[in-house]
C-alpha cells in the first residue's frame, strides 16, 4: 500500500488508518457471516457434536490461542517501540511476533491433523464442514498476512525506513484483527 | 457534423456505418418479418399440437387478445382475492404513473429553456407550501398503495395463505419433484402415508372439486418450484425440508403444473397435470387406484419408497 496522498489532517484517525478501518469492517463482515453460518447450522442439529463424533480437542487449540495472543502482544510492543524511535527493540519484538505467528500456524496444522486422526473427514457432514472450513479459512488469512509481516520485518532492518511510517502499525492492526477472529472462533468452536 | 477535414473519408465511414446498421436492422426485421413469424408459428403449433399428453388431457384454451394479458382462468377459492389485489395495485400505480408522466411531459414543455425565461432559484426561498407537495404525494402513494398491500398481505396470510385446512374432508397429497418430473403420493384407502396402498403417480395430480387439498412438498434433488397458475399458488420444493400450502379447486377440468424454479436442463418442460374431478369421480378413482397399488405393491421396488411421515406442525 503506497503512502496516502495528503498529509494527515487533525483527526483521530490518519488517512491510512481510516482506509484500514474500512477494510477491517469488510473483513469483520466476512468472518461474522462465517461464524453466524456456523451458529445457524448448529441450531438445526439436535445433538452437537453429532453422535459418533468426538468434540474438538481443547489442549492444542487453547495452546494455539495463547500463542496467537502472545504474538499480538509482541506486535503491539514492537509498534510502541517503533513509535518511540527504539528501532532495534521494535525489530526484535516484531520478529518475535512473526515467529509466534509461525508457531500458531504449526499448532493449527497439528490441530487439524488431530481432527483427521480422530477419523473426522471433511466430507462427513456439517460438524466436519464447519470446523475444517473455519480453521482453514482463518489459517489461510494468517498465511497470506505473513507476506506483509515479512516485508515489515525487512523494512524495520532498513535504516532508511521513515520513523513516521504507518506500515508497522497498520499491519499490526490486521494481525490483531486476525487474532481476535481466532479467539472468537476458538471460543465458539471448542467451548460452546 | 464534425468539421470540414477529410470530408470524403468521413462520408465514406458514415456511409459504411449506416450500411452496417441497415443490414443489422434489416436482418433482424426480415428474420422476424410477419411471414417468417407466421411460418414459425405454424411449425411450432404443429409440433406442439402433436403433443399426446396435451391431447390426452384435453387441455384447450383459446384466448382473445385482451385475455392474453391476464393469467389463466382462476379456479381456486382464494385466487380471485389475489387477482383483485394485483389489479388494484396496478390501477392505482397506473394513476401515479400517469401523474408522473404528465408531470414530466408538461414540465418539459412548460419549463423548456427559451429566451427571457429564467429558472426559479429555490435555495432558502422555497415556500413551505412548495415543500409540502412532494411530501403529500408521497403520503398519498403510501396510504393508497403500501398500506393496502401491507394490510391485504396480513389479511390474506391470516385468512388463507397460512390458514391450513384440517379435518377428514381434507385431501392430503405429498409431492416430490425430481429432475424432471413430479411425483405425487396419496395415502390411499387407509388414509396413512407409507403403506402398501399409497397411490403414486408421475405428473398426474388429481383432486376433487370443492374440497381442500393439503400439499406437502419436498424435493428429491434440487430446488424446484411447484406452480399452478390457475390456482394462483406457488411453493418451492426444497431438498431436505418440507414446505406446504393448500388450495381448493372449484372448476372441473385439466390444468397444467409448471416448475417455476430453475432446476437444470429440462426445467422448461417439467410439466405436470392437475385434474380436477367431480367428487364422486375422484372417490372412485382413488379407491380403484388404491386397490391396484396394494395389489401391485412390490416391497423390493425402491422407487415407490419415497415419502415422509405427514408433517403435523401446521401452524
Amino acid at each position, binding site marked *: *500500500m503506497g503512502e496516502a*496522498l*495528503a498529509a494527515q*489532517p487533525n483527526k483521530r484517525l490518519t488517512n491510512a488508518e*481510516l482506509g484500514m478501518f474500512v477494510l477491517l469492517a*469488510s473483513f469483520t*463482515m*466476512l468472518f461474522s*457471516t462465517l461464524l453466524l453460518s456456523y451458529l445457524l447450522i448448529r441450531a438445526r442439529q439436535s445433538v452437537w457434536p453429532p453422535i459418533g463424533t468426538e468434540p474438538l480437542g481443547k489442549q492444542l487449540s487453547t495452546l494455539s490461542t495463547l500463542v496467537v495472543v502472545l504474538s499480538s502482544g509482541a506486535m503491539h510492543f514492537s509498534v510502541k517501540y517503533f513509535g518511540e524511535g527504539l528501532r532495534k527493540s521494535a525489530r526484535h519484538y516484531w520478529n518475535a511476533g512473526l515467529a509466534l505467528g509461525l508457531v500458531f500456524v504449526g499448532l493449527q496444522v497439528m490441530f487439524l491433523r488431530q481432527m483427521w486422526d480422530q477419523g473426522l473427514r*471433511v466430507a462427513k*457432514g*456439517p460438524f*466436519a464442514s464447519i470446523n*475444517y*472450513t473455519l480453521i482453514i479459512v482463518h489459517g489461510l488469512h494468517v498465511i497470506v498476512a505473513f507476506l506483509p509481516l515479512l516485508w515489515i520485518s525487512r523494512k524495520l532492518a532498513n535504516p532508511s525506513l521513515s520513523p513516521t511510517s504507518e506500515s508497522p502499525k497498520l499491519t499490526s492492526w490486521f494481525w490483531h484483527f486476525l487474532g481476535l477472529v481466532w479467539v472468537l472462533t476458538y471460543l465458539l468452536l471448542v467451548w460452546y | 457534423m*464534425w468539421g470540414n477535414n477529410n470530408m470524403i473519408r468521413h462520408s465514406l465511414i458514415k456511409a459504411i456505418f449506416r450500411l452496417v446498421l441497415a443490414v443489422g*436492422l434489416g436482418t433482424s*426485421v426480415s428474420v*422476424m418479418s410477419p411471414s417468417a*413469424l407466421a411460418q414459425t*408459428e405454424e411449425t411450432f403449433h404443429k409440433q*406442439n399440437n402433436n403433443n399426446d399428453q396435451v391431447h390426452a388431457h384435453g387441455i384447450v384454451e383459446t384466448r382473445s387478445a385482451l385475455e*392474453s*394479458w391476464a393469467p389463466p382462468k382462476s379456479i381456486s377459492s382464494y385466487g380471485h382475492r389475489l387477482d383483485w*389485489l*394485483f389489479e388494484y*395495485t*396496478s390501477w392505482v*400505480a397506473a394513476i401515479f*404513473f400517469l401523474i*408522473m408522466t404528465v408531470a*414530466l411531459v408538461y414540465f*418539459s414543455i412548460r*419549463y423548456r429553456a*427559451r429566451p427571457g425565461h*429564467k*429558472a426559479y*432559484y429555490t*435555495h432558502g426561498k*422555497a415556500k413551505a407550501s412548495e415543500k409540502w407537495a*412532494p411530501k403529500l*404525494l408521497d403520503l398519498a402513494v403510501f396510504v393508497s*398503495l*403500501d398500506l393496502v*398491500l401491507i394490510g*391485504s*398481505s*396480513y389479511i390474506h*396470510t391470516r385468512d388463507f395463505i397460512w390458514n391450513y385446512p384440517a379435518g377428514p374432508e381434507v385431501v392430503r397429497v405429498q409431492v416430490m419433484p425430481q429432475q424432471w418430473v413430479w411425483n405425487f403420493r396419496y395415502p390411499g384407502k387407509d388414509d396413512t402415508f407409507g403403506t402398501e396402498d399409497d397411490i403414486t403417480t408421475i405428473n398426474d395430480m388429481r383432486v376433487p372439486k370443492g374440497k381442500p387439498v393439503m400439499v406437502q412438498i419436498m424435493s*428429491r*434433488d434440487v430446488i424446484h*418450484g411447484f406452480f399452478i*397458475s390457475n390456482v394462483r399458488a406457488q411453493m418451492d420444493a426444497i431438498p*431436505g*425440508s418440507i*414446505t406446504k400450502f393448500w388450495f381448493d379447486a372449484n372448476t372441473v377440468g385439466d390444468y*397444467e403444473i409448471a*416448475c*417455476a424454479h430453475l432446476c437444470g436442463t429440462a*426445467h422448461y418442460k417439467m410439466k405436470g397435470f392437475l385434474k380436477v374431478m367431480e367428487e364422486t369421480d375422484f372417490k372412485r378413482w382413488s379407491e380403484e387406484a388404491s386397490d391396484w397399488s396394494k395389489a401391485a405393491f412390490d416391497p423390493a421396488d425402491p422407487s415407490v419408497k419415497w415419502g415422509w411421515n405427514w408433517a403435523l406442525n401446521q401452524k
Partner: protein
Amino acid sequence: MSTIDTTHNNHDAHHGQGLFSHHDDHLHPEPTSFWTKYVFSYDHKVIAKQFLIFGLFWGFVGALMSVMIRWCLAMPGQPFPLIGNLLFPSSNGVIPPDFYNALFTMHGTIMIFFALTPIIIGFLGNYSIPLMIGARDMLFPWLNMASFWVSVASGALLMYSIFVPMGPSAVGWTSYPTLAHSQWSNGPGHSLWLVSLFLAGTASIMGAVNYISTIIRLRAPGMRWRDLPLTLWGLFLTSILNALFLPVLTAGLLLLLIDREFGTTFFLAASISEAGTQGDPILYQHLFWIFGHPEVYIVILPAWGLVSDFLSFFSRKPAFGYKATAISMTAISILSAVVYGHHMFTTGLSPLLTSAFTTLTLLISIPSGIFFLNWLGTLWRGSIHFTVPMLFAMGMVFTFGLGGLTGLHLAAVSTNLLLHNTYFVVGHFHLTMAASSLLASYGAIYFYFPKMYGRMMNTRLGQIHFWASFLPIVYIFMMMMVAGYAGMHRRIYNPYEYNYLQHLLRLNQYIGIAVAIAFSAQLVFVYNYFVSRKKGSVSGPNPWYLGTLEWTIPSPAPYYNFDKIPTVYNGPHEFSHPKVTDRDFIRQDEYIEGISHKNG
C-alpha cells in the same frame, strides 16, 4: 478568507503562486512511458477509462447473450442467424437447452458484475470523485490501480470458464444450491464462476475502501458534506454498502465452492448427503440475498445521485430538496439490509417473517418517493435544456418510476406468490436496475466525455441513440411484466411447452424485435464514442456551464487535475441565483460576497 489549512494541498501559500509542480510531493510523478501512462497507471482518470472500456466490452458480450435468449423465445426451434451453425453445429444452429441455461446465467452475471458495476461505480466513481471534491487523485492510488487489475483477472477467469468442458455456469446468476452443487452441475464451469466472482467482489471492496476514504478525507477546504454533488452521495453510500455486504456474498460463495470441491455439506440437505445430518440450501439463500438486496441498491445509488445532479444542472435550478434527497438515499441504504427476505417468500418462511419483510420492503417506498418527487420538483419551474445527458437522466426518471411502482406488487407476500419467478420479476428488475442504471451510465459517459477527451460527442447521434434505446427498452420490459402476469415463468428455454403460455408467442416476438432495435442502437453509441474522440467539436473547459469543480479545469483534464487546490465557497447547484445576473451558474470555488459561505 483565511482558513486553517490542515492539508498540505495549498502549498502555494508558502511557496508562492504558479504551477503546482514544485509542491506535488504527494502526487505520483507524471508518467512517461506508454505502460505507465495507459496500462499501469496510478491516475484515477486513466483507471476510470480502463473500467469504462472493460465495462463496455462486457456489456456488449452480455447484450449479445440477451439477443440470443430472446431469439429462443421468439423463434423457438429456429437456428440462430449468422453465427448459429458456427456455434452449435451439432444442433444445426439451434441453441440447445443446456446452453440456454448458461446464456441467462452468464447474461445476469456479466451485466451486474462486469458491465454495470465497472461503469457506474468503477468508471463514474474513479473519474468524478477526485475531480468533484477538488483533489489530485484518490487517497490510495496504488490500491486503485490494483482494483482494476483484479477486475481484469476476474473477467479473464469468467471468459475462460465459457470454454471449459461441460460448459460455463448454467445455474442462474443466483447460483442456488443444490443445483449449483457438483452432483447436478459438474465440470469446472461453475467453480470457475465462483472464483471469478470472489475476485470481482475483492476488486469492488478495494474500490470501496478508496472511495469512502477519499470522500471523507480529500475534500477541498470549504467543501462541507452539503456541498457535495449528489453523485458523490450516491457513490459514497454505494461504497459503504459494497464494503459491508460483498463479504457476505464472498462467504456464501466460498462455502458453496468448498461444498463443490471438498464435499462439505453446508448447503446439502439430509436426504441427499451421505453424512445423514442436515445442511441447508436455504442458508445459502439467506447469505446470498443479505448481499443481493443491497447489491441492487449498490448498482442504482450512483445513478440516483447522478440523475439528481443532472436534473439540477440542466434545469439551471438548485436540486429540489437536496437535504431530503441525501437523507432518503441514506435511509434506503440502511433499510436495504433488512428487506432481503422478499426474495424468499416461496421458501416457506413463517408468517412473522413474511409480514416483517413485506412491511419493511414497502416502507422503502417512502424515502424512494421523496427523492423521486424531488426530481420532479427540480424540473418544476426550471429552464430545461435537453442536452443528451439530460435526455438520459429524464429517461431514467421514467424507467425508475415505472419499475419502482411495480416493485410494490412484488413486495407484498400475497401478490409475490403469483409473481415470483415469473417474467414480472424480470421486467421489474430490468426496469429499475438495468434500464435505469444503463441510462444513467450513458448519461454519465456523454457528460464526462468532454472532460476526458476535450471534445463533445455528437449531439444528433446521441439523441438517436437515446430514443432508439429508451423506447424499445420501455416496451421490452413492460411487455415482460405482462407476460409474467400472464403466467410465464422465467429461465425457460421453451415456454410453449405449456399450453397456457402458447398465446404469448406473438408477444415474445414483438419483444424480440424491440431487443434487436435496442441492440443495434448501441452501435450508434459505439461509433459516436470512438469517432468523437478525434473528430468531436472542441469542448472547452466548461461546455455544460456548470459550477462543480471538475469544470473549472481544462478539458481534457491534465494529469494533476488542479493547478491549485481550490477552496470551496458554494454548493454544487447554485443556478439562476437572482443576484448573479451575467450568467446563470456560480462556480463552487468562486467567492461572492453575500452569497457564499465563509468557512474554509
